[in-house]
């Protein structure tokens, strides 16, 4: 019996794997671009060293960063130019962006600390931000951990509440009848509106913060989960029943996996809201965390610290985003890949 098939990931041939990487990193490898990006990053370094500065900045951290960046590019391109694997595709694909980043770094350095065309204290050079991060590193690391911890607890609580409610409301008509009006009215309220109340109702401000973030999360997750359950084809429920599944097994083997694509849509919608609520609630109630740090910096008028916290947030939230993305990719590996 000869059947045309594409096999599951474990069975995939190395050639098929390479195809997958090639669609992801589709820009062809060009020596010119790779060399050019090295040149721009090197130029950023020499520009910083040679052009006279109008502002008083300690450029040590910035120079260190540029050197590390240059070294990284050199290694990646070096491997890319002699091998044929994933690293070559990767370095070829991102060479143009790396070149652009070098130009952007030169531009911002000239505009701020070199010619002071956009001025302190509201606009600061990247060099100064890096120096600030280095100076405040202990405080920033503690704040980052604290924010990450608070976010993780709240996000998990909010997601669990949303998923459980959504599954039951999607599956059971009676439950849906009684609870959906409440979901609709309560869920639509912006979490931030509860802030003054939560600060006095909850015994500790930490619990109040958890409540606020979880509140921002549960509604989109619950709403999408309901839709996800209701969109599952009745064929799957019927075949489960003819195979002797109990109600609990139908929940576990049909309802949850069937709703999972929609649950993830809800989770990604909730993610952005949760970051917003994290920062806002830390600004109001907390004694620690990145939101608190920004608020404190604002109080003392140090806007460089505000930028420092923003840079850290950009990194932290990107890491969380890509982690959730990976999680989704794994959990939904059974789906036809919709990637072009």
């Amino acid at each position: 019996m000869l059947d045309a098939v594409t096999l599951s990931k474990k069975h995939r041939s190395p050639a098929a794997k390479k195809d997958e990487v090639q669609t992801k990193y589709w820009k062809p490898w060009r020596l010119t671009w790779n060399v050019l990006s090295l040149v721009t990053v090197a130029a950023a370094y020499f520009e910083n060293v040679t052009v006279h500065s109008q502002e008083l900045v300690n450029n040590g951290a910035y120079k260190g960063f540029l050197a590390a960046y240059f070294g990284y590019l050199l290694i990646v391109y070096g491997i890319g130019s002699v091998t044929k694997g994933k690293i070559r595709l990767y370095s070829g694909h991102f060479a143009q962006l790396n070149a652009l980043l070098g130009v952007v770094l030169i531009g911002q350095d000239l505009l701020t600390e070199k010619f002071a065309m956009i001025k302190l204290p509201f606009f600061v050079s990247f060099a100064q931000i890096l120096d600030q991060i280095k100076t405040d590193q202990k405080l920033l690391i503690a704040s980052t951990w604290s924010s990450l911890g608070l976010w993780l607890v709240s996000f998990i609580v909010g997601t669990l509440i949303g998923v459980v409610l959504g599954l039951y409301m999607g599956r059971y008509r009676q439950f849906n009848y009684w609870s959906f009006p409440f979901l609709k009215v309560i869920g639509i309220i912006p979490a931030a509106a509860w802030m003054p109340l939560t600060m006095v109702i909850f015994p500790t401000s930490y619990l109040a913060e958890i409540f606020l973030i979880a509140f921002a999360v549960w509604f989109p997750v619950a709403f999408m989960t309901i839709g996800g359950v209701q969109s599952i084809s009745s064929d799957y429920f019927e075949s489960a029943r003819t195979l002797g599944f109990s109600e609990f097994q139908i929940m576990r083997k049909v309802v949850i996996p069937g709703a999972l694509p929609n649950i993830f849509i809800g989770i990604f919608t909730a993610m952005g809201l949760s970051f917003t609520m994290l920062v806002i609630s830390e600004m109001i109630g907390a004694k620690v965390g990145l939101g608190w740090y920004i608020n404190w910096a604002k109080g003392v008028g140090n806007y460089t610290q505000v930028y420092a916290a923003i840079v850290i947030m950009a990194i932290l939230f990107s890491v969380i985003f890509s982690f959730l993305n990976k999680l989704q990719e794994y959990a939904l590996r059974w789906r036809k890949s919709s990637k072009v």
Partner: protein
Amino acid sequence: MVQLTIQNVNRILHDNNGERINVLEDINLSVGSGEFISIIGPSGCGKTTLLRLISGLDQPETGKVTVDDQLVTRPDASRGYVFQHGSLFPWETIRDNISAGLKAVHGRHYDRNLVAHYIELMGLKGFEKAYPHQVSGGMAQRAALARSIIMNPELLLLDEPMGALDAFTRADVQDVIHRVWKQTQTTMVLVTHDIDEAIYLGTRIVVMTPRPGRIKEVVTNPLTFPRDRTSDQFLEFRRAIQDKLNFGKKPISETI
């Protein structure tokens, strides 16, 4: 030994305008152990509804469906059901799909050798870890068949399982079904609109007519196994069934 009895069954539905439709009217049928019943009729004759009543997925308005004198009230693993589009769970691998029912009934200590046996029997070796969308339509239907037959049902209900397949794959799956029927001696009821298929597999052919859905005639298949689709006896019997169905004889003007 299994005895399926359908007595005076009526199934009524209401259309969008609230009008009564007699989907099934006064259905009587008795199926004994080891039989292979082919139910054939044009679309809209209620043959799928009849199969759903036997499985317990649907209930009749009047009359009763019994298996071994037990009234059928809900679906059960002892009455396997293979759907037209297979309805394999897309989120489970072929192996997990095939063992789904065993796991549901026996828990973690299900018979893994049995699963391996059916994977082998259905020609699915090497595809255990593939997901349903990664295999061909024929393989998916063989997996769906394995998922039901592995439960060792008293009765296997086949709802046009080859309807969505191309002619070559269809013949292949028909042979698989015939082989399984012979080996396991499971009583099977097949719903189809393919006359060749009904004759090739069935020991008795139930001919149905639409609106209201009635059983027109139950014909015993005179052909012996192995059956040859191109033999004179086959073609002759095919013509007889076709006549009973008024197949291609009614002018279009009359049906509109």
